[in-house]
């Protein structure tokens, strides 16, 4: 093998890898755009088509893997003859991924198919725009297909060529979707059918992948990954040889296992009948259904409830098989809750006025104040028939009527009444009025309790509300101080009074005792009649002695007249004496 050929080979492979990579890029772009369009329009066909595009990414990836494999294996030098499968067995990991993708796509196809069978035709938004986009996508897919086919043919790679074919199929699907959307805009809704068809495409691809991975695993040939296409697999089922050889194989298998021909034959027939029995059994099983502990069910026969006012309780029950009877189950026993007004975000956090604790929606009270009630309704379904057939969204009705009743009740009350005195009463009123309204609408809902979980003023004003409480506390404080003063002053004066009282009492005692003492002394010193004169004279003289001793005295004899010496004492009786002398 010369250097030149090797270089040439590498270059070719490089070219193929690049082509595969470009195809992957294109497909990723298309898939993304298609999913985006689904979210914009809501069309089922677009969803199916987006998934279909997703399968293209997978195919392109598989081609890239296969092409990469050849980089390692073609060193042997089959000059340009990559048509032959490389001998190297494909890695387990790759097989596993392929298999998972196959299973995933089959499931997706199943889901889409179920949607196709069960759902109603949906309304599509912006059908013309989406349809136009899809026609553009179809052109994109066509370009990819042309590009891959050309490179594939040029370089002689089966993988690329078949991927190109796949892209062409994709183009068909895109065209189909586009036209269906355009038709929708004209008033013909085949959206659902197109979705079903594309689901079939996806299913076939999933099936292919699974079968091919199996074959690669068995035969250990990488190129087998792209060998079997859906139609070949389908064709097998209609090939007379295939069932016959399969039957023969089963027959031989049983003959080998057990000797006697009779037993083998019986087993053989049973085996053949198994699929039929299985299908019948599964179908019959649809006649059975269970209703859970908390549930009630209604059986609809061609859309019409079989019994009216007699719901089916928990347990195992019989019905006619699909598609005659269908069941609708509702959890009737379970108590559900609904928040009116505001919803507290976290359950454990303390509900403090000054802290934001939920989705806040202000209500108005009758005295023109904003406030935030957190009302929790507890309810359950009391009549499943009304619940199912009378309102489109009973929960929504409950929510709206709940708001209305709360608003109209609060519009008549002052904030303080709502928050305190009349809270309980309002809860009861709300429950009654809500129930009346709900019964009027035959909603089938029973209100079990209305709870005013929290009622608080706006956060920005909450401090002023707390200020009122502080003011009240201060009022109490001032009063208490005054009471303290009172408690101090009154007893003190009572003490003083008692003191004075005692003093008065002691005065009485003092006075009387003194008097008694004096009286006793007088009595004792009282002389008898005989000694009286003597005693009196003695006392008299004694007293005079005491009194007159050491004092200035003038002793005058009246018969002598006024002595000269008096003149020195004019200060005493000036006028009389002067007068006396002048006279």
């Amino acid at each position: 093998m010369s250097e030149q050929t090797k270089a040439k080979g590498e270059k070719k492979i490089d070219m193929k890898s690049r082509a595969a990579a470009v195809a992957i890029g294109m497909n990723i772009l298309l898939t993304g755009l298609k999913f985006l369009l689904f979210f914009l329009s809501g069309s089922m066909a677009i969803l199916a088509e987006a998934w279909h595009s997703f399968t293209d990414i997978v195919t392109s990836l598989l081609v890239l893997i296969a092409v990469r494999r050849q980089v390692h294996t073609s060193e042997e030098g089959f000059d340009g003859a990559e048509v032959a499968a490389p001998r190297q067995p494909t890695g387990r990991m790759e097989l596993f991924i392929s298999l998972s993708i196959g299973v995933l796509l089959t499931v997706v196809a199943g889901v889409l198919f179920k949607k196709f069978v069960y759902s109603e035709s949906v309304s599509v938004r912006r059908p013309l725009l989406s349809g136009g986009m899809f026609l553009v996508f179809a052109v994109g897919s066509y370009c990819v297909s042309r590009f891959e086919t050309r490179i594939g043919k040029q370089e002689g790679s089966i993988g690329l060529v078949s991927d190109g074919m796949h892209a062409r199929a994709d183009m068909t699907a895109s065209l189909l979707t586009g036209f269906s959307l355009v038709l929708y805009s004209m008033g013909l809704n085949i959206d659902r059918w197109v979705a079903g068809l594309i689901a079939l495409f996806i299913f076939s691809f999933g099936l292919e992948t699974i079968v091919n991975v199996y074959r690669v695993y068995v035969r250990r040939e990488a190129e087998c990954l792209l060998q079997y296409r859906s139609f070949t697999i389908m064709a097998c089922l209609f090939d007379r040889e295939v069932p016959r050889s399969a039957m023969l194989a089963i027959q031989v298998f049983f003959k080998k296992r057990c000797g006697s021909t009779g037993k083998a034959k019986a087993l053989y027939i049973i085996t053949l009948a198994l699929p039929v029995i299985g299908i019948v059994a599964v179908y019959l099983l649809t006649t059975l259904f269970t209703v859970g502990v908390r549930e009630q069910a209604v059986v609809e026969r061609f859309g019409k409830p079989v019994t009216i006012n007699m719901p089916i309780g928990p347990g195992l029950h019989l019905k006619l098989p699909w598609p005659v009877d269908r069941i609708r189950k509702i959890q009737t026993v379970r108590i559900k809750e609904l928040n009116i007004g505001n919803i507290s975000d976290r359950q454990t956090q303390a509900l403090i006025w000054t802290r934001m604790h939920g989705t806040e929606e202000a209500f108005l009270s009758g005295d023109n104040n904003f406030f935030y009630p957190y009302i929790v309704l507890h309810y359950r379904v009391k009549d499943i028939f009304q619940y199912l057939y009378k309102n489109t969204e009973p929960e929504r009705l409950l929510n709206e009527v709940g708001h209305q009743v709360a608003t109209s009740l609060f519009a008549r009350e002052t904030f303080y009444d709502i928050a305190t005195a009349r809270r309980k009463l309002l809860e009861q009123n709300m429950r009654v009025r809500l129930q009346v309204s709900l019964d009027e609408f035959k909603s089938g809902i029973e209100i079990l309790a209305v709870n005013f979980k929290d009622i608080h003023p706006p956060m920005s004003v909450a401090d002023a509300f707390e200020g009122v409480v502080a003011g009240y506390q201060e009022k109490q404080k001032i009063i208490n101080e005054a009471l303290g003063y009172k408690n101090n002053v009154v007893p003190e004066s009572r003490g003083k009074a008692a003191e004075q009282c005692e003093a008065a009492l002691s005065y009485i005692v003092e006075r009387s005792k003194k008097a008694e003492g004096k009286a006793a002394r007088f009595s004792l010193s009282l002389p008898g009649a005989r000694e009286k004169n003597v005693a009196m004279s003695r006392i008299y003289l004694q007293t005079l002695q005491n009194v007159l001793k050491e004092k200035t005295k003038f002793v005058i004899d009246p018969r002598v007249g006024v002595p000269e010496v008096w003149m020195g004492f004019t200060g005493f009786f000036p006028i009389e004496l002067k007068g006396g002398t002048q006279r």
Partner: protein
Amino acid sequence: MKYIVGFIVATGLLLGFVYMNSFVVSQSEYVILTQFGKPVATIKSAGFNWRWLGFVQRANRIDRRTHTFTTQPIQLLLGDKNPIVLTSYICWQVSDPLLFFQALISTDIATQKLGDMVNSQMGNALGDFAIGNIINTNSSEVKLASLEERILKNTNSSAQKNYGIEVLQVGIRRIAYPAVVAEAVYNRMRSEREKEAKKFRAEGREEATKIRAIADREATEILAEAYKQTEILKGEGDQKALKIYSEAYGRDKEFFEFTKSMEVYKDILGRQSTLVLSTDSDIFKYLNNPEGRK
């Protein structure tokens, strides 16, 4: 083998045919059957029905249950020029399926139309109401119910005739103020609360002053009473002493007067006193006359 395959294929075809040519009406819907777009039948009872191939006759399903939806909040002026933001909800159901189908096609379009109608009716009706009729602590002044009733009546008259819809209830689910007004309300609430707090404090002071005054009065009363009592007691004491004295002294009045006088002399004649005595006085009776005669 051939028969089995034939049987399966035949059954499949039959089922497919049945499926294509029939439809099921649920308890919760009306179906209007259209043939190439032309309504041919209205089916109002639930059950199994036949039709021609899917693309010839189409079953248009119309939900017959009561629908509920919320209108967008709208700012309106009341009769007294107060702005207010109202959100309402509407409960409605299809009363004439065919008319509904022709006029509105789907519930989405219907709700949009109804929302427009209700909001416009609300604007008309609110002109006759003042803020006091919307929120008021006097329950009889609140006329929310009659407002709702009026909007319902006005909306219904045109909805029923033109759209095949019967409006069952219009309810006001939320009353709010526009942002600017809301700010004013917040300020008013704050000032109200502050007023309340001040009132509490003043009340406290009032009460305290009263308590002090009463306490002072009580104290004075107690002291006065005590004074009265002590005076009485002292009087009693004096009386008692007087009685004792008079009793004792009464036994010899002359002697008492004499001794008392002596005591008084002793007391009143202090050291500084100057006395002028006559030689005629008793004390000097022996001074000139040893016999003591006068």
